[in-house]
């Protein structure tokens, strides 16, 4: 629905945004982008400093920012390039363990932390390259199963490796909580800018073309394997980076933090924000983050409510209102007419 709307209004004034684009020189656009990022950082920092965002929530903000990085990386692979991956948590684990090992075995200074995060990202990206070459030949559900298996292999490999090296199922600990708000924020900002710049280039258009129609894309000279692997490597690189930040956020890492459910959580952020929509991924991470905060008081029924909320959110987002119309009739809620219902199915 939203798509249709923008087109109807976008048609007649097609020339306008283009002219605007031409008037603004690239350095100015870049400067404005940078100013927005610094501005958002300043505002958030101010809110934390004045304790409008309490220490508890400020801590939670870091996790939301890390989830944004994960979501953006997966969105590039699944949303933009159309390659359904369920192994994202596995690549996150590679980054997390690499960073933990680097921090544990060095002085733990800022340089070694940042170096560890970078090394984790690079290793995750390399692994992405290595497994992407054979698996990205697969399509749709086959690729989903293959990446699912891959994620599990990484987790089980970590669990069963010598405890002295990777800590086994008990995991690794003994390093400080080193992820600061600055690291998480600028990590997310860098990821966003990279994915956005990629998307708005010939390479990004090739990615979308591969998602839209592989046969047509290939006939136009797009090397399918190369484009898919490129998207996969960039996406897994950022998964590794997020993993490193996650290590410093938790202070302890265990294999079970990177299981299949974590991949699903990331996928949820992407789907909630809209496949291929990078702004949506940011919103999706924030919404799911807030939902989780509110659910923390519910303890035992938390997962049930969370799952139920996801079903409802997805139903609302998909635009299929039949369930809600039925619900309204069943309980005779005459007064309950949310906007999305009246707009989409004409219920008054």
């Amino acid at each position, binding site marked *: 629905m939203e*798509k249709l709307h923008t*087109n109807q209004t*976008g*048609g007649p004034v*097609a020339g306008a*945004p*283009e002219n605007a684009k031409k008037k603004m020189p*690239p350095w100015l656009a*870049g400067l404005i982008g940078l100013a927005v990022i610094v501005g958002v950082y300043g505002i958030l920092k101010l809110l934390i400093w004045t304790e409008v965002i309490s220490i508890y929530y400020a801590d939670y903000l870091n996790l939301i920012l890390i989830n944004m990085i994960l979501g953006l990386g997966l969105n590039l692979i699944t949303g933009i390039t159309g390659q359904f991956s369920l192994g994202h948590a596995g690549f996150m684990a590679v980054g997390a363990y690499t960073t933990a090992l680097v921090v544990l075995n060095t002085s733990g200074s800022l340089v070694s932390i940042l170096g560890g995060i970078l090394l984790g990202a690079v290793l995750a990206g390399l692994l992405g390259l290595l497994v992407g070459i054979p698996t990205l030949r697969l399509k749709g559900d086959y690729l989903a199963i293959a990446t699912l298996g891959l994620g599990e292999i990484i987790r089980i490999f970590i669990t069963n490796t010598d405890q002295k090296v990777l800590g086994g199922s008990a995991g690794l600990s003994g390093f400080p909580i080193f992820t600061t708000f600055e690291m998480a924020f600028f990590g997310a900002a860098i990821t966003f800018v*990279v994915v956005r*710049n*990629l998307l708005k*280039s*010939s*390479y*990004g*258009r*090739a990615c*979308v*073309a591969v998602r*839209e*129609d592989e*046969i*047509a*894309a*290939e*006939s*136009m*000279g*797009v*090397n*399918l394997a190369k484009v898919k692997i*490129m998207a996969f490597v960039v996406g897994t690189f950022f998964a590794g980076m997020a993993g490193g930040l996650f290590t410093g956020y938790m202070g302890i890492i265990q294999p079970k933090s990177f299981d299949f459910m974590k991949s699903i959580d990331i996928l949820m952020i992407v789907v909630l924000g809209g496949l*291929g929509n990078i702004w949506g991924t940011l919103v999706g991470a924030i919404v799911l983050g807030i939902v989780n905060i509110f659910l923390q008081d519910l303890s035992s029924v938390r997962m049930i409510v969370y799952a139920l909320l996801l079903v409802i959110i997805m139903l609302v987002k998909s635009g299929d209102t039949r369930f809600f119309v039925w619900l309204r009739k069943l309980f005779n809620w005459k007064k309950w007419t949310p906007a999305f219902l009246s707009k989409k199915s004409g219920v008054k």
Partner: protein
Amino acid sequence: MPILNVENLNKSFGGLKAVSDVNIYVKRGELLGLIGPNGAGKTTIFNLLTGVYVPTTGVIELTGSDGRKVKIGGMKPYMTARHGLSRTFQNIRLFKSMTVLDNILVGMHKNVKYTLLEAIFRLPRYYKQESRFEEQAMHILEVVGLAHKAQELAANLPYGEQRKLEIARAIATGASVIFLDEPAAGMNPSETDELAGLIVSLKDEYDLTIILIEHDMKFVMGLCERIYVLDFGTIIAEGNPDEIKHNQRVIQAYLGEEA
């Protein structure tokens, strides 16, 4: 000197011979027609020439503008595209959720010079080439009459314009040989006439060799300089439109043999 030379081309799917012993040559700058009843193997030949299918046997040879010969049989589609072959599809295959302009720009992707890192860090080469790409793309859109719809989604174009956009996208690759698979399908007579004019003007402007499959005989006979007729996977006739119209085997293939 043919730009494209096909010798003894065969393609079998299991026990079915879809294309058998096809010999075709295409002259540079020619507008060639490929006709035949449904299921004769026309689209299969297109798929073989553009790399979608791998030939069972046979040679497909492309002569570049520099006179060098390349055997393109069995190459992947993106490689044949790099050698200057491009196409449209019988059932339109546009990138539907992309804008009209972006569809054209995807066609140009194979000519991109800046690297991924240059795009991410927005180095000068990125801006330089993007603006040149956009200029060229807008020019192509102007020629096919879609410039005013550059920012619309491809899916929202009416059918006839989707066909035109597909042709424009094929040209945007910088191809020298273009395959059009039923470009006039589903068009009314006036749209068909307009399309014929467009194909001729595009051919002249971009110095193209065009090979097209079409069932609209008036369209084919009026447009093509030479025609191959295909039936049951073999070439049954070749010649100019007049010769084809009066060829007994062709009439038999279309109308059936006398009882």
